[in-house]
């Protein structure tokens, strides 16, 4: 690989000064809110903060006594897995296909990247309209071919709806990275494999996919984080967690309790739980999945 370049600083303060702006941003936008979340999670306060009292781990205790909260772990696991796997698989497929297109590739790519510009809440509403039980285009078609669709009362239908919206929203982002990854693979490698007699399928799995693995790993981490944190607006717009609690993933309950119900303590406790889960997941991914990545 390339020769490693290393610059040595004589003075001790210069490197710190150079990273200071970045550090400041991380401190203000990541560590400070996280610390506040931790602090709020051990307090109980009314909406306006006129009475605040320290309650220790009470917020966590109430949280884990709530059966529906425990049930939403299951929903979250299913939802996140579906969103990450489907999102990655579909976008990889699209990227591979777009990579092979010779004519008009610009137009295809632009169209595929478009959904990324749509706000999550708008994506939720779009899908909601298409699947609205009585007026939606898709639900009408489904009913016409004999599949009853009612996400207002059928939990599976509701889950399909929010997963579809969340995947659709994220495909563009994944697509961009996969496409860039594919295009950075030297053509000579693929040509050499072709000369050795490998078909397109074989070439993809033995040459392209291993070389894409750093991109795929990066996207896996990003998509898990996306499914865990960024999808509450889609859920809020499409199902509000219903029917029952069938689509109430952890971050949606957190959003609801904190911003609609004004229960800051309970909501902060949930954010701490969520933070722990995502840290654990990321550690697992880096320790076990990353080993299989070829850089």
């Amino acid at each position, binding site marked *: 690989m390339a020769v490693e370049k290393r610059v040595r600083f004589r003075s001790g303060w210069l490197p710190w000064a150079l990273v200071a702006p970045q550090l400041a941003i991380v401190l203000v936008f990541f560590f400070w809110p996280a610390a506040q979340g931790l602090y709020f999670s051990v307090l*109980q*306060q*009314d*909406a*306006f*903060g*006129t*009475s605040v009292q320290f309650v220790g781990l009470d917020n966590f205790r*109430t949280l884990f*006594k*709530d059966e*529906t909260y425990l049930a939403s772990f299951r929903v979250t696991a299913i939802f996140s897995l579906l969103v990450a796997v489907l999102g990655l698989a579909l976008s990889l497929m699209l990227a591979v296909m777009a990579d092979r297109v010779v004519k008009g590739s610009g137009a295809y790519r632009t169209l595929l990247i478009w959904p990324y510009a749509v706000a999550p809440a708008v994506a939720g509403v779009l899908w909601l309209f298409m699947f609205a*039980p*009585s*007026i939606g285009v898709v639900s009408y078609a489904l009913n016409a071919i004999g599949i009853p669709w009612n996400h*207002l*009362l*059928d939990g599976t239908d509701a889950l399909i709806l929010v997963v579809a919206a969340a995947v659709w929203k994220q495909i563009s982002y994944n697509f961009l990275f996969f496409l860039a990854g594919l295009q950075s693979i030297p053509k000579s490698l693929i040509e050499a494999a072709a000369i050795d007699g490998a078909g397109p399928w074989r070439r993809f799995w033995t040459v392209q996919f291993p070389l894409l693995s750093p991109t795929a790993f990066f996207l896996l981490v990003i998509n898990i984080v996306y499914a865990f944190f960024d999808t509450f607006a889609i859920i809020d717009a499409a199902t*509000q*967690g*219903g*029917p*029952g*609690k069938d689509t109430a993933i952890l971050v949606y309950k957190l959003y*609801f*309790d904190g*911003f*609609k*119900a*004004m*229960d800051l*303590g*309970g909501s902060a406790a949930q954010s701490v739980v969520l933070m722990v889960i995502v840290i654990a997941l990321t550690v697992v991914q880096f320790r076990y999945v990353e080993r299989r990545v070829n850089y």
Partner: protein
Amino acid sequence: MKLKSLALAAAASSLLAALPAQAQTEIIWWHSMSGQLGEWVNGLAKGFNDSQKDYKVTPVFKGTYPESFAAAIAAFRAGNAPHILQVFEVGTASMMASKGAIVPVTEVFKTAGLKFDPSVYVPAVAGYYTAPNGQMLSLPFNSSTTVFHYNKDAFKAAGLDPEKPPTTWPEVARAAASLKIAGHKCPFTTSWQSWTQLESFSAWHNVEFATKNNGFNGLDTRLAVNTPLHVRHIQNLANMSQQGLFVYKGRNNSADATFVSGECAMTTGSSALYGAVKRNAKFTGGIGTLPYYPDVAGAPQNTVIGGASLWAMSGKKPAETKGVALFFKYLSDPQVQAKSHQETGYLPITLEAFKITEASGFYKQNPGTDVSVNQMIRKTTDKSRGIRLGNFVQIRTIIDEELEQVWSGKKTPEQGLADIKKRGDVELEKFQAANKG
């Protein structure tokens, strides 16, 4: 010439704008009224500003009810809350519990040296916002109540009398069956299922929705929604749902659109839906009283209100508080009230405004608009005065979640209502613990 006159006009307008600003005290009012209702709010502020010179009320639209509530909380914590905040009815208990954040309306008037007479207000409306000691805490502003809407054209097509809406639940079921036979896919639906089918339902039958007089007499209130009467009603709706007579159309007011579009023929919802039906529906809409069970003693009593009230925020200068008091007084003026009531379809908050509207013949020209008023202008009982629960936003969501499982057949009505009580009581206990001080 043109330039000169332009400059002159600019100078004159800036002079006009600058002059009153110095002499006037500004009152900031955060509200959640958009569209036509936003214009109504601006009109009220303008009316008040034109009526005197010392104060200027500036209405600011701050998004939906939950959004403006959240914004006001953030602003209060940062020390720059608005003078007046419009809060929806489910936020009432949270506001009342935040004693340091608000000034009761009675206090506002006292500080300003104005006389305050609580008896001019409609009891069922004002009672919702009155403390156990009789002190009125916030000013009722836009209040509506639960009524029964039906499609007169669909009734005619199904061979039902369009001038006789069903008044009891057995009659609703019979009408729904006729509509279904006539080919209607959605005979009956409902908006705000917690508000219409449990909260107002309880008051209308003069039974408690929650103990301690629905929370008016203490924070140790607990839900009382699993009585035989409640189970009977939810069972009845679940049966209707199984038979395709009742079709669930989603949380909050999402069923409203299905009624206005003509898809559903009957619905229970807010009386404020009247305006949308009149403007947008391609059929003739009718309004009836909320249905009840005729064999229940004491029914029908009165329904409970929804909507919002105006709260005066604390920490303001005496001059500003006086401005708030004068504005509240202006809003309570019978003429202003009557005009608001007729313009928006919201309930009148004073008895005088109701009389003025009646005398003007408004109800005769707009049949159905008096139904909500008649449901409210009654002497209330301790069980029907209103509902005041902490963490009400969460409780309403719990009710949505559990009822959805009943409609889909996953839970029996008994089980669903028992789970509502179990989960709702946890919220009430949490609120009690947080506000015992």
